[in-house]
């Protein structure tokens, strides 16, 4: 059952989304070589509380952190650890905020650099990898308008990712978001049944669209801690996610 949110509920989610976006921006600015994952986790936790919201991820049964940190070959659900980030690492920061009874979910992957250079003259293959993921997310979000189907979002993600030679992770999916962190529908990053058979997108739906992809093969494995999911072939993995609401004129990103 896909929950349609009323205009008032969407306004509450917009507030939560705005807070989440601010928290993410500050945490991303702190990503530098020498910073440890736990530093970022504690920073995110403090910022969320300071802005008057609650951590959405702590409401997940069995999860005690405010963020999931996915460095290099970790795909998703990385538990924040003590190790320090190195130059050239990639880190995917996934965070959720709970405000007014509603969740919002957002993730971004970033390259760890000692100085931020604005020119793209030295785009190596890792930068191209991340650029593809961002592009896939933007195209996927554009597909979230009334009259389209979930399959169109999946198709947009799969086309862009696979055209560059990367692989879409199959077992992990985007999802509806609202009173619960994970709601219907499931939004896979690949097309597995006829698009006409996937759910119809309607005005008022709130979707957390995720692009989860690997540089190498799509197979993944779970660590012994029961949460951390890594690529089976050790290749890098990227994660991008935004929570959007579908309106008459198209999608509006809640986490902005």
């Amino acid at each position, binding site marked *: 059952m896909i929950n349609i949110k009323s205009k008032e509920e969407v306004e509450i989610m917009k507030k939560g989304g705005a807070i989440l976006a601010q928290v993410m921006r500050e945490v991303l600015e702190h990503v530098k070589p020498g910073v440890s994952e736990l530093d970022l986790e504690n920073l995110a936790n403090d910022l969320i509380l300071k802005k008057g919201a609650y951590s959405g991820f702590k409401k997940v049964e069995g999860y005690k952190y405010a963020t999931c940190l996915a460095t290099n070959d970790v795909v998703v659900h990385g538990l924040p650890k003590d190790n320090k980030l190195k130059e050239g690492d990639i880190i995917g920061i996934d965070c959720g905020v709970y405000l007014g009874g509603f969740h919002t979910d957002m993730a971004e992957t970033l390259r760890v650099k000692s100085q931020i250079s604005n020119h793209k003259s030295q785009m190596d293959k890792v930068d191209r990898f991340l650029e593809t993921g961002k592009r896939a997310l933007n195209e996927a979000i554009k597909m979230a308008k009334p009259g389209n189907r979930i399959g169109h979002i999946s198709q947009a993600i799969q086309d862009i990712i696979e055209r560059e030679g990367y692989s879409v992770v199959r*077992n*992990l*999916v*985007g999802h509806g978001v609202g009173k619960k962190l994970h709601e219907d529908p*499931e939004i*896979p990053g690949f097309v597995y049944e006829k698009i006409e058979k996937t759910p119809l997108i309607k005005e008022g739906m709130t979707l957390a669209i995720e692009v989860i992809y690997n540089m190498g093969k799509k197979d993944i494995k779970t660590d012994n801690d029961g949460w951390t999911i890594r690529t089976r072939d050790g290749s890098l993995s990227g994660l991008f996610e935004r929570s959007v609401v579908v309106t008459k004129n198209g999608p509006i990103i809640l986490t902005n």
Partner: protein
Amino acid sequence: MAHQGSFEIEGIVKESLPNTLFRVELEDGKLILCHLSGKMRMHFIKILPGDKVRIEMTPYDKEKGRIVYRIK
């Protein structure tokens, strides 16, 4: 936080219980409790023990499933 997607698997119906619940045996021998999907109920598709069926399962509960198709 990413959500683990549901997947489809095949099995053989071992026994039928009240309220269109069925005990189904999967390929690896595990017995799970399945219910009939609403679409099949709507179209009055009968399931009897011995039928081969397609099940939809979630990775979050490995003991339950939903029967979505009766394979000929």
